[in-house]
């Protein structure tokens, strides 16, 4: 089965928890184990932080896809038409980058003056029962 869920939030620190909860719920449904679910909770949080870094407004758009044993998450910042909301390419924190690197299997990012986007994917270890 392949399921895609999208979530759009305003840049508001109190709503970041929704990205974590959605990632954890989908991973749990996709039979990831508890340790892997916790890894994803932290990884998606860091992914958002790295994309949203410095923005004062705009919309954060997340896409969560589960396909077989892999969950893929992309995070994108739409600057809501006010270009100075996005202050140059994101400079993700070194700590964020180390965490993402350690917690997921693959990840990447692309940013231009007007757009920031990052993604990750993680495969569960548990085999199909």
């Amino acid at each position: 089965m392949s399921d895609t869920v999208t979530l759009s939030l305003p840049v508001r620190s109190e709503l970041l928890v929704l990205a974590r909860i959605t990632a954890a719920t989908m991973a749990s449904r996709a039979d990831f184990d508890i340790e892997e679910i916790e890894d994803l909770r932290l990884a998606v949080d860091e992914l958002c932080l790295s994309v949203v870094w410095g923005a004062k407004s705009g919309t954060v758009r997340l896409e969560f896809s589960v396909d077989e044993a892999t969950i893929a998450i992309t995070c994108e910042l739409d600057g809501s038409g006010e270009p100075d909301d996005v202050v140059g390419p994101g400079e993700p924190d070194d700590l964020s980058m180390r965490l993402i690197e350690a917690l997921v299997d693959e990840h990447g990012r692309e940013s231009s003056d007007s757009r920031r986007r990052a993604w990750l994917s993680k495969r569960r270890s548990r085999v199909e029962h």
Partner: protein
Amino acid sequence: MELTFEINERVIGGVPVVAVAGEIDVATAPTLAEHLGVHEAGGANVVVVDLLGVSFLDSTALGVLVGSFKRLRDSGGTLKLVIAEPRILKVFEITDLVRVFPIFATVDEALAG
């Protein structure tokens, strides 16, 4: 729900013990920073941060703790952490911060160590 965040403070033998419970992220880390700032401004030497009740913490939380640690160290003090949960310790291991902070398994050990 796991959405709660709470800070409780005690002073034990003159040492402030800041106990945090819940999730420390970009929304709640500023509250932790305020609490630590009060102790830094008040001239505390050693501060113990008890993370036993923390269920989640991200790089924002780490940034707050590292900042406070550096300021206390620069004035001759230190910031000690209390962590028992492997999941929380893992975050400090991945970021190599286990080599920066003095980390203890209980508040008593942090106060003694």
